[in-house]
């Protein structure tokens, strides 16, 4: 067999494939553009590959957890946020947060009822900066109830663009104390004064950080019992 014949057969196969693709394209679902969240994940993974993760720990956000708990996932989230835009050089941009659990609100919906999380449900709190953040950020998390604030030892992931995510099972992330909580997330530039529980308590009451390199997010939710 000559190489010409091999070549002809190969070209036939390539043309046949091309014709098939023209007449039977992939399903629309496969071609629908990837959303911003998917691109965030890809970007984070690429940054990891480059090894140029900015200062803060950069962990690529995993694919959304598909909650398979019998009940339809409530996706949703309450969003809110506060943030302070103190004047000054290179402040952190304002953040917007979303929270999802068993039930929730999303985006700009009013928070008539706080979202709920409970045993067996997945919790996801995501704080996104209004624009990509250049440089590293650090994160501290707190849980506030009444006049008491405590550090929240939930693992916070930071994307290369400064988005923050806390996610996992409610059982693992929350103390076994059903009731209302205010999660206070403090995002700051390295070098800014670290926040403590007393700061978190003040922030939960509306106090604004003086440092332009600090942003605070509050999310109120209800932890349900078994």
């Amino acid at each position, binding site marked *: *067999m000559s190489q*010409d014949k091999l070549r002809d057969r190969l070209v036939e*196969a390539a043309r046949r494939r091309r014709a098939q693709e023209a007449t039977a394209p992939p399903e629309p679902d496969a*071609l629908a*553009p990837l959303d911003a969240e*998917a691109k965030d*994940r890809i970007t984070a993974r690429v*940054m990891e590959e480059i090894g140029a993760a900015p200062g803060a720990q950069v962990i690529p956000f995993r694919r959304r957890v598909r909650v398979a708990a019998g009940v339809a996932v409530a996706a949703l989230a309450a969003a809110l946020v506060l943030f302070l835009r103190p004047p000054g050089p290179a402040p952190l941009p304002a953040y917007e947060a979303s929270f999802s659990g068993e039930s929730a609100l999303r985006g700009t919906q009013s928070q008539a009822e706080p979202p709920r999380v409970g045993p067996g449900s997945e919790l996801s709190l995501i704080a996104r900066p209004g624009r990509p953040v250049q440089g590293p950020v650090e994160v501290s998390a707190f849980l506030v109830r009444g006049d008491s604030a405590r550090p929240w030892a939930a693992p916070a992931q930071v994307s*290369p663009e400064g988005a923050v995510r806390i996610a996992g099972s409610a059982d693992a992330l929350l103390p076994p104390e059903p009731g209302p909580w205010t999660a206070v997330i403090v995002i700051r530039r390295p070098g800014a004064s670290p926040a403590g529980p007393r700061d978190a308590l003040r922030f939960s009451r509306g106090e604004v950080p003086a440092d332009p390199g600090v942003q605070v997010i509050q999310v109120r939710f209800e932890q349900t019992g078994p």
Partner: protein
Amino acid sequence: MGTAAEPEVALVQRALGGDARAVRALVDQLTPVIQSRVARALHRRARQASGRNVRQEVEDFTQEVLVSLFTDKGRALRAWDPARGLSLENFVGFVAERQIASILRTAKRSPWTEDPTLAGDLEGPAGSDDSLAAALESRQLWEVVLDRLTERLSPLGAALFEAVWLNERSVSEAAEQFHMSKDAVYAWQSRLGKALRQVAVEVMSESGAPPHTSKAGGSS
């Protein structure tokens, strides 16, 4: 290098240097072409993938391809030279084809993986060039050969394959399109021919037929 490509070259350089904004911009720019190649490749293997979440697979493969561009200090991406006549999207499209073919062939985790053993498609031994031709009449085997060759070719090789073999552009036209000498195009054709033959023999061998021992006749 053409001035039209300079902003893209700069963008690539910034991304390779770890600039998160540039990386995101490249992800935005290149995702559609990669996703399209991924979707087509997965669609061709739809039978092997029943029950899979196609959407999820498309994202995973797209991510793998994009990451591969930056692997080993961005070796694949650094190979892009706009002076060679390929736009960044076209270049990455060929890289994607190669990467996807490789992943699909080797990834044990994926039900998309094609079984290279297609003994059932073979009807005779491959003891000569003609029998090689006869045995490779199977369309499925030629699909495998095509994928395997795609996996071997550099983006420029793939572009030349498409231009000269598939689209029957003349050597002069190809030389002009890819900014190379005619001799260089001839040399590429020779390399393509050798690669094709090597792949054909490999596929035959993997398919369970007796080893092929004779040399190719014909031109190079």
